[in-house]
């Protein structure tokens, strides 16, 4: 290859040499002849004649050089480039639609690659699995407590290592370090050895790092943290830092690229589990994520079987503790974790697959579009092709030339598409990260993505280049040369051009229906009755850790703060709560309600939240009975406010005011003083649960979450809030400031992403299809001007001519619609099988898709029809 290239560039010199060689031959032959006594002029002529066809001999000699494959390829490329330059409009349209199609596919594939394909940088990631806990009607999640971890670790026979890790933010301070929150985790002592990760410096956390009760205050940091915060200082081992009040010694640096088990949630620091709060090991807190390495020869099926046996022990423990029948429905799952823990994959994996299918449809439309453009242009170039075939051009060579041109078009599209995709994936990741979770996915195109893009570029190039290439391959020179250049097309050819347009129309009906399905779903979610008013609420997070405020002092400060916040102009009410609605968290406890006899095994859990006065007014939750909390509640018997669902369940709609609730393990009862409407707390689609609210100030339950209802745009008061907080609590930092609207949107990120992207892709697809129809009609009219002129001359009215064009448009649209509706129906079932909760029963999406397509088709047919109707016989004659 390198020799070939070298020769390619030396071709000119070789050509010259050959020329010179032949020149020398002729000179010597002439010389000999002159010596034999011939006249110099006659001698030169005779020598040339004797030599033969010089150009032919040069050509056949050149073939001996053996680079013809590369040379002809280069010729094809140059020829194609020349063709592209000659019709810049066509080239621009083709490259742009290719860029959009390939860009969309590359962007989605980058996401899929980062989410599901790229494996963790650990030893043999294919043997890693994670354990998942699944309650009915809930996503499975990876969260276990210490006791269960110990039980599985000691009793399983299928894992060569079972590891536990938490997701914990640490507040790291140290000499030369700005105090900052660093994402990290407490990890079991076998964490690094099971993953097969080796340190680049020092050592990693290992069995020497103690057992519960005798903590080892050590930390391992990530390679990037070492780089960015310690400037790759090799003396980092032994450095002292601290997390809050706990001193830590850095013992090592993890290898480059390793950032924990969740690629989208990179961790920078790891501490041994034994160094965590002593209580964590004994209480039933579900804070550990479990992953394991399968023993050699053990299949994931065997691991599932074994774990479901060990899971029975967990269920017994839970049942003993809670006496709740629904515990029996909990299940454990074991899933591959070579690409990391599945949280983000669960949330975005299936939408990404659906979007991949949508993007593929868009690309197909773009291909069909370019194919029909090439076909139309091929028709214009048929004469050229026929002449070339007649002059002896190899047909295979012509075929190859056409394919080269098509692949060149798609390759240019792909280059532009990669740029689009690079920008697009950044945007996608930002949208993904706008929800409740931190998403720091490295989704930039890597080698796998580039290979994928190159693959689809070549494939699509061949796909849309094949039809026109085949046409020129089959071109019969004689019959065509005899015909006039504008003679009618063959029936097969016309049919083929039309079916390409029909395919585009059908695909875009399917695309539009899919998009409309997602948009419909999103709007249903957005218009759900949430039980609270999502607009005009500002949510503020305060960071009190290390501020010096705590307990009673903080409680008093918080009450003072609420008063000052309510005094800000534009603020109607301010409150504080344990957690915001739609924050994706919640708390539950089993309880006994006065006057209600629970059956054995009945679910006795009540959801709970601690809220300050004005909570219900701030969030717009209606107070139906009784009163709100007040500052007078402090120091008095405990009070609670309950929701409607609780009242209906325990009191059958009777008056609950004055009744009492007692929580398990808590002797003091709560008196119900008010009833409020049901409000969603965790998930948009959840069933209302039985809910109890407590007064945070009465319970001395401080929180860092503040909410303000405003009469102006909520963001407008954010600066005032910061100023007020700084003025009152000097050491407290204002953390995240969002709106309730943003919080609600954050709960439906996958749905928003699907609606946005499918909407965008289907709009592009529909425009391309309409352009395709327009192009074909315009082309047909242009070719038939002669015929139309004759028809007009023979007495056809404008209406007749318009009808003629519209009939053609209508025929193609009808066929496109029929196929498209079938496709859409089938596609709906495919999408519904992946994503539950879609409004698939509704016919609206398909009707919408069909209606939009019909409208676009009419629009596309309008101009050509008008053009046809205006043809005058004279014009047609002049055209001839």
């Amino acid at each position, binding site marked *: 290859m390198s020799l070939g290239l070298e020769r390619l560039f030396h071709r000119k010199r070789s050509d010259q040499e050959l020329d010179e060689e032949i020149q020398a031959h002729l000179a010597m032959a002439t010389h000999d002849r002159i010596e034999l006594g011939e006249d110099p002029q006659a001698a030169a002529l005779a020598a040339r004649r004797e030599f033969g066809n010089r150009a032919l001999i040069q050509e*056949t000699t050149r073939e001996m050089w053996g680079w013809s494959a590369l040379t002809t390829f280069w010729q094809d490329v140059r020829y194609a480039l020349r063709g592209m330059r000659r019709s810049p409009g066509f080239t621009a349209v083709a490259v742009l639609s290719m860029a959009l199609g390939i860009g969309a596919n590359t962007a989605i594939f980058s996401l899929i690659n980062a989410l599901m394909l790229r494996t963790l940088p650990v030893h043999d990631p294919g043997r890693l699995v994670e354990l998942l806990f699944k309650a009915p009607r809930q996503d499975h999640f990876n969260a276990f407590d210490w006791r269960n971890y110990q039980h599985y670790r000691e009793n399983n026979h299928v894992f060569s290592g079972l590891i536990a890790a938490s997701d914990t933010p640490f507040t790291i301070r140290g000499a030369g370090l700005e105090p900052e929150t660093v994402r990290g985790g407490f990890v079991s002592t076998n964490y690094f050895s099971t993953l097969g990760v080796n340190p680049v410096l020092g050592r990693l956390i290992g069995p020497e790092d103690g057992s519960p009760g005798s903590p080892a205050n050590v930390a391992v940091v990530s390679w990037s943290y070492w780089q960015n915060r310690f400037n790759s200082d090799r003396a980092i081992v032994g450095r002292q830092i601290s997390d809050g009040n706990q001193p830590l010694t850095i013992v090592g640096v993890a290898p480059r690229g390793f950032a924990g088990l969740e690629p989208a949630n990179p961790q920078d620091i790891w501490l041994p589990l034994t160094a965590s709060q002593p209580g964590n090991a004994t209480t039933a807190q579900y804070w550990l994520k479990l992953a394991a390495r399968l023993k050699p020869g053990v299949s994931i099926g065997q691991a599932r079987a074994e774990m479901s046996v060990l899971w029975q022990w967990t269920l017994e423990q839970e049942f003993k503790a809670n006496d709740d029948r629904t515990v029996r429905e909990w299940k454990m799952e074991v899933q591959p974790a070579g690409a990391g823990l599945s949280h983000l994959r669960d949330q975005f994996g299936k939408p990404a697959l659906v979007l991949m299918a949508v993007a593929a449809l868009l690309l197909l439309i773009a291909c069909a579009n370019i194919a029909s453009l090439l076909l139309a242009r091929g028709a214009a170039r048929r004469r050229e092709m026929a002449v070339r075939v007649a002059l002896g051009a190899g047909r295979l060579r012509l075929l190859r030339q056409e394919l080269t041109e098509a692949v060149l078009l798609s390759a240019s599209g792909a280059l532009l598409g990669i740029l689009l995709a690079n920008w697009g994936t950044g945007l996608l990741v930002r949208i993904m990260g706008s929800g409740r979770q931190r998403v720091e996915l490295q989704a930039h195109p890597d080698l796998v993505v580039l290979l994928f893009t190159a693959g689809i570029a070549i494939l699509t190039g061949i796909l849309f280049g094949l039809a026109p290439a085949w046409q020129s391959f089959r071109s019969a020179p004689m019959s065509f040369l005899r015909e006039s250049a504008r003679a009618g097309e063959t029936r097969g050819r016309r049919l083929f051009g039309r079916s390409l347009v029909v395919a585009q129309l059908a695909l875009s009906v399917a695309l539009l229906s899919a998009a409309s399905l997602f948009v419909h779903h999103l709007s249903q979610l957005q218009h759900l009755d949430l039980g609270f008013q999502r607009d005009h609420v500002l949510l503020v997070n305060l960071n009190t850790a290390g501020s010096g405020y705590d307990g009673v002092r903080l409680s008093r400060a918080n009450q003072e703060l609420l008063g000052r916040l309510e005094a800000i102009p534009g603020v109607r009410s301010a409150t504080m709560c344990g957690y915001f609605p739609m924050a994706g968290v919640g708390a539950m406890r089993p309880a006994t309600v006065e006057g209600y006899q629970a059956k054995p095994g009945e679910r006795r859990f009540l959801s709970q939240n601690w809220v300050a006065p004005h909570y219900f007014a701030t969030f717009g939750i209606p107070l139906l009975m009784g009163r709100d909390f007040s500052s007078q509640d402090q120091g008095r018997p405990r009070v609670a406010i309950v929701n409607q669902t609780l009242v209906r369940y325990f009191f059958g709609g009777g008056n609950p005011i004055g009744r009492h609730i007692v929580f398990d393990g808590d002797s003091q009862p709560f008196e119900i003083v008010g009833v409020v409407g049901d409000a969603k707390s965790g998930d948009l689609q959840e069933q209302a649960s039985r809910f109890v609210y407590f007064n945070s100030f009465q319970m001395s339950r401080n929180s860092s979450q503040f909410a303000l209802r405003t009469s102006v745009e909520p963001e407008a008061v954010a600066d005032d809030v910061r100023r007020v907080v700084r003025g009152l609590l000097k050491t407290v930092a204002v953390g995240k400031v969002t709106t309730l609207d943003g919080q609600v949107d954050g709960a439906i990120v996958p749905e928003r992403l699907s609606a946005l992207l499918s909407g965008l892709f289907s709009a592009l697809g529909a425009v391309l299809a309409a352009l395709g129809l327009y192009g074909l009609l315009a082309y047909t009219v242009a070719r038939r001007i002669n015929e139309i002129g004759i028809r007009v001359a023979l007495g056809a009215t404008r209406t007749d001519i318009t009808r003629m064009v519209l009939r053609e448009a209508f025929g193609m649209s009808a066929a496109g619609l029929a196929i498209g509706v079938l496709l859409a129906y089938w596609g709906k079932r495919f999408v519904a099988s992946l994503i539950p909760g879609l409004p698939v029963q509704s016919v609206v999406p398909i009707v919408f898709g069909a209606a939009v397509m019909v409208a676009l088709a009419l629009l596309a047919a309008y101009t050509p029809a008008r053009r046809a109707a205006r043809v005058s016989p004279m014009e047609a004659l002049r055209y001839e």
Partner: protein
Amino acid sequence: MRKREGYKSGIELLQGTLDMLILQTLRRGPQHGYGIGQAIRSGSGEVLQAETGSLYPALHRLEKQGWIKSEWKSSEHRQRAKYYQLTEAGKKQLISEHSRWKQLSAAIVRLMNPSEEGGDL
């Protein structure tokens, strides 16, 4: 005119034998394309004719195969010309082609003269 017709009536070379003749000619020393053509013609008593349309492709093919190599030198008439010369591989190739040729021609002779079979060998 007459002379040219004489060339025309020369025997066309069999496919493959031209390579052997070129190699054989170059055994006597470096030679340019024109010279090789002349040598084949005169060496065969004006019977064999190496057409330039076959000669030059053959020379370039043999060079590509490494059996001959070339350099630019001045000829006896101070004409700059491309001289070809036999390589070691070319010498081996010539020996093997020569022995194949001997087998082939002996076989043809036997076929063409069946009466001489078993004659004076």
